[in-house]
């Protein structure tokens, strides 16, 4: 295999990895603050994919434009979900939270199965097959899909907005305070319940945005959901639970590792490589690559 092929796959891995990273970022934000593991994360990603798919086929709305209303919708869903369903479970043991969210995941994925059936759906964007030929000197020209570049760029923009929100706004600082010291946050008069709901909403907005972008990259079927949940977990653990930059780094690593593994070994073996990475990270740096807190 030629160098240019590997280079192409590498670039492709980086670009998809950024979108995965955005999805994982949602999980990381929720866990980092609310301390609830969203076991329905991949299911929400697939729900967003179908939302973008429907908007595209029915209204011919480009997924890159649909991203904004879908993220807003998911923000609202997340807010309501935390307020109504998850808040009473915050003090319950992990396995109870697990059952609640697994129940939700089962409902989501099978609801989609009822409506759309098991077949893979494809959003055929007018520029789906456009690409750039990038000269690289020694390796010759490599082909880069335009749609992947757009998706990765959009993912970076959304991540940037979220970073800015947490760093520069008062509400963002308040949410970080809840994550750092819950009792302290309550003592100084922060409305923890509202901030938790806001955090869950932001986490789901990330998933909504990521799902809209993923429709441009890959076919959608309900069966993707559990593997996305696992993927998000793997990325977040590798990057470090609760670390925002870690989620992006983890996404990049997993994106590249899976892309390279699928040509170097076999496409069906690619997730084996991510799990091997996961085990290595857990063994040698359990807090994740960018995590601060000891596990």
């Amino acid at each position, binding site marked *: 295999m030629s160098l240019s092929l590997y280079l192409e796959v590498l670039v492709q891995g980086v670009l998809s990895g950024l979108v995965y990273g955005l999805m994982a970022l949602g999980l990381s934000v929720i866990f980092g603050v609310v301390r609830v593991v969203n076991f329905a994360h991949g299911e929400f990603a697939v729900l967003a994919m179908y939302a973008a798919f429907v908007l595209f086929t029915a209204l011919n709305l480009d997924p890159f434009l649909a991203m904004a209303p879908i993220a807003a919708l998911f923000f609202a869903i997340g807010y309501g979900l935390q307020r109504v369903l998850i808040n009473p479970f915050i003090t319950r043991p992990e396995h109870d939270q697990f059952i609640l969210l697994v129940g939700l995941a089962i409902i989501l*994925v099978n*609801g989609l199965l009822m409506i759309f059936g098991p077949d893979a759906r494809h959003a055929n964007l007018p520029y789906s097959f456009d690409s750039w030929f990038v000269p690289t000197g020694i390796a010759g020209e490599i082909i880069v899909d335009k749609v992947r570049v757009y998706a990765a760029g959009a993912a970076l923009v959304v991540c940037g907005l979220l970073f800015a929100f947490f760093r520069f706004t008062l509400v963002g600082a308040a949410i970080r305070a809840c994550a750092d010291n819950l009792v302290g946050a309550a003592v100084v008069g922060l409305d923890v319940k509202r901030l938790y709901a806001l955090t869950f909403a932001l986490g789901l907005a990330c998933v909504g945005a990521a799902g809209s972008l993923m429709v441009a990259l890959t076919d959608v079927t309900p069966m993707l959901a559990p593997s996305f949940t696992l993927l998000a977990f793997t990325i977040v653990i590798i990057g470090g639970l609760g670390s925002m930059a870690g989620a992006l780094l983890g996404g990049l690593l997993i994106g590249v590792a899976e892309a390279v593994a699928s040509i170097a070994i076999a496409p069906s073996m690619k997730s084996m490589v991510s799990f091997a990475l996961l*085990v290595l990270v857990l063994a040698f740096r359990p807090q994740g690559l960018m995590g601060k807190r000891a596990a």
Partner: protein
Amino acid sequence: MIARLLRTTPTRALVLLGLLLALLLLAPMALDRYLVSVFILVFWFAYVGQAWNVMMGFAGLLSLGHALYVGLGAYVAAALFVKLGVGPWAGLWLSALLSVAVGAAIGWLGFRFRIEGVYFSLLTIAFAEVARIGFDHLGWAGGAAGLFLPVSSEGGAWWNLRGGPLFFYYLALTMAAGAFLLCAALRHSRLGYRWLAVREDAEAARALGIDVFRARMAAVVISAGLTSLGGVFYAFYYNNLFPGPVFDISRSIEMILAPIIGGVGTLFGPVLGAFILTPLGEALIAITNAVGLNAPGTKAVFYGVCLMVIVILAPNGLWPALKRRLGIPEEKA
């Protein structure tokens, strides 16, 4: 041991258990073939739920990858039988041995490197997924195309675990009852009390001189070994094995629903959970078919709704509430 169990268990509980067992022993006389198969499933889920509960309920270790041990147990025994002609009674020792070894490796990795809580759960999922993909590519054991056990119309020899529905009914019942007894004994053993101490507060347990690492390892190893025997049963009952369905995360989840719904850490919880969830699943199939909702996924949506409702309404599982209703007092010391 048995005598102590009999002494410490409330009389009313013993009587009710005896009645239930007698009822189940006689039940096949009144059940048709379909219902017998449902009961076999109930017993199977009660068995593996009990095995999982040793880790979660007793030692506080949330494993989300127990399908790994089912799969390993099933594949080892089935491959030995099909490829080498080794019967299941010999094969199950190897099944258990391999599962115990893998469980010990996961446990060692987890506990030596202080991987706790959610991280440990993720580790168990990762290993189950690696096994699923690995077996997908393991040509010798059939790979993704599956591994099949020979089925003959005469049934075959019982010592090769070949038999009709009734044979498997009583085998599954024996396993479920055996696991229940074993867990009851473990729960009241020195090890059982160490587990509870570790579960409630690992640091405090360590301060009391309990070897936390050994207690946790014991839980993983016992749970893995027991679960793998459930896998052997699975292989010889269904006669076919595919890496996808056997190792999939959805199977791991399916296995742990019964003990959680029934009541984590209780002895009868896994049994009660299995008696509720398996018939619920079957009933939902029947109802959705009767109403004409044949779209794939309909049954599962209702199942998901039931799970959420139960976990919202009964925080500690259903058994503690039912126990009070039945008037069973807390155990005598």
